[in-house]
């Protein structure tokens, strides 16, 4: 197979390609899923930005 006699080697050669294909298929199927933020997360994000600005003021005096 593929010019290789040892099945452990040609097997893993194919396995590498198959696992990359698995990643591609997974990525395509889930491309747009789990992107929506829940209300609580949106609130968290804005709280975050506020605290980041605060930190900025404290740390750099900006």
């Amino acid at each position, binding site marked *: 197979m*593929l*010019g290789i006699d040892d099945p452990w080697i040609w097997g*893993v050669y194919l396995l590498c390609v198959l696992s*990359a294909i698995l990643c*591609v298929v*997974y990525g395509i199927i889930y491309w747009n899923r789990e992107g929506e933020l829940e209300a609580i997360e949106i609130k968290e994000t804005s709280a975050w930005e506020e605290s980041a600005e605060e930190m*900025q003021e*404290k740390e*750099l005096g900006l």
Partner: protein
Amino acid sequence: MILMAEVNWILYVVILAYLLVTLYLGYRGWKTTKDSEGYLVAGRKAHPYIMAMSYGATFISTSAIVGFGGTAGLFGMGLLWLTFFNIFVGIFIAFVVYGKRARKMGHNLKAMTFPELLGRRFDSRFIQWASGLVIFLGMPLYASVVLIGAARFMETTLSIDFDLALFIYSVIIAGYVIWGGLRAVMYTDAMQGTIMFVGMLLLLIMTYSHLGGIIPAHQALTNMAHMVPSSLAAQGHLGWTAMPAWGSPWSWTMISTIVLGVGIGALAMPQMAVRFMTVRSNRELNRGVLIGGIFILMMTGVAFAVGALSNVFFLQNQGNISINIAQGNADSIIPLYINAATPDWFVYLFMLTLLAAAMSTSSSQFHTQGSAIGRDVYETLTGKKGSQSVFITRIGIIVAVIVAVILGYILPDNIIARGTAIFFGLCASAFLPMYTLGLYWKGTTKAGAIAGLLTGTLVTVFWYLFIHKAEAVPLGVAKMLLGRDLLIEQMPWPVVDPILVALPMALIVTLVVSLITRKPEEEHLKGCFKGIR
């Protein structure tokens, strides 16, 4: 080989352009990095392409391409098992099983570094600073071998002084990591990842077409099995397209150290895990799986196949196998092959590829070491926050660079793959049990996590000093204390990698201690697992 005098101006223009773009991206990152959050987790709004390429480019360095590619030139295509682990464990499992939870928990706990995630999950300052210390002390070896990989290629290609190349290169990296923080690192990583992808794709096509196609190339390599040097055959080497004899020293080294050590270790690499916390939602991670899977196949898959096939090329053109052409130093196989087998323009492009690969990994390593000492050790122990810890982080980066460069001058030949495996194995044994259980089992206790961290770290160190021959003999601690080279001479122990012992022990200790110690507060767990289904 290209002599310095023959190096044409195109090379200089290309490298200069590359460095200018790198500096520009670093500057952009610096301009938009104003606080420690921007500095440490890139403001948590990284684009999926940037995040995935950055993860991949950090994962894959000159160590993977030059070091492990050269190791494949020596061991053969069995190294493709590592590629399989890299893709399936290092990308798929890492993103889907670990990444999503680590991202959410990192946000819940407002963690900015990997040790901080672990420390806050278990409500333990000790875990944070001790993990930071393990990283700060363990990573210089890995950082150093990445520098060596880049410098080896420049040395071979340009015939320039190894020491000088190492020095100039380190100064450039230190500059943009110190001033830009993680956002700068991630921007440059993504560009560097793109360059790496193109370079490796071309290398694959060139190698197979040069050797007459995929099957003829493999067949020629299979037919060379009788040429394995007798010293290697005695250790279990059965040819470059065959697995080593089961149970032989060669098979232990390949399977336990190279495939498992590095393959599993990737899950608990602090500089990679922190990237999960840089994205806004799981969607970015889903997309990252696609990009990462192809990227890693193109990196280590190509490097290991080409490394093994270099034997066919060298036999046909110079009448000898790769490791003999490289005078016994596997680290030189890939540089020699590229210089001998590909046209000049590609050698330049590949040098850029390697420069990109090394810079992306080095910068993340130094950034991680800096934040480990500034944020995890200094801030945790002194309780002082703010500009002072950013200052300590920057000092930490400078120290890390200096230590890595000094190690670069001291370390021996054939060190790149081994140095990488040591650090990956250490991280797996020290962090993986508490990281995994911390994400999935609410019953994991602070005492359990601490016991696991100490067990994993100490058993690994003990094993390297007293049992594992490749390190214990040159280090000489066993000889000094016990009067003999190794504590156990009986095979296979001297060739069994510490990860096979330390990781299961750490896992068992974490589980057992967690079962018999006081459960964490319900309130604390609620905070950690908020929004995790």
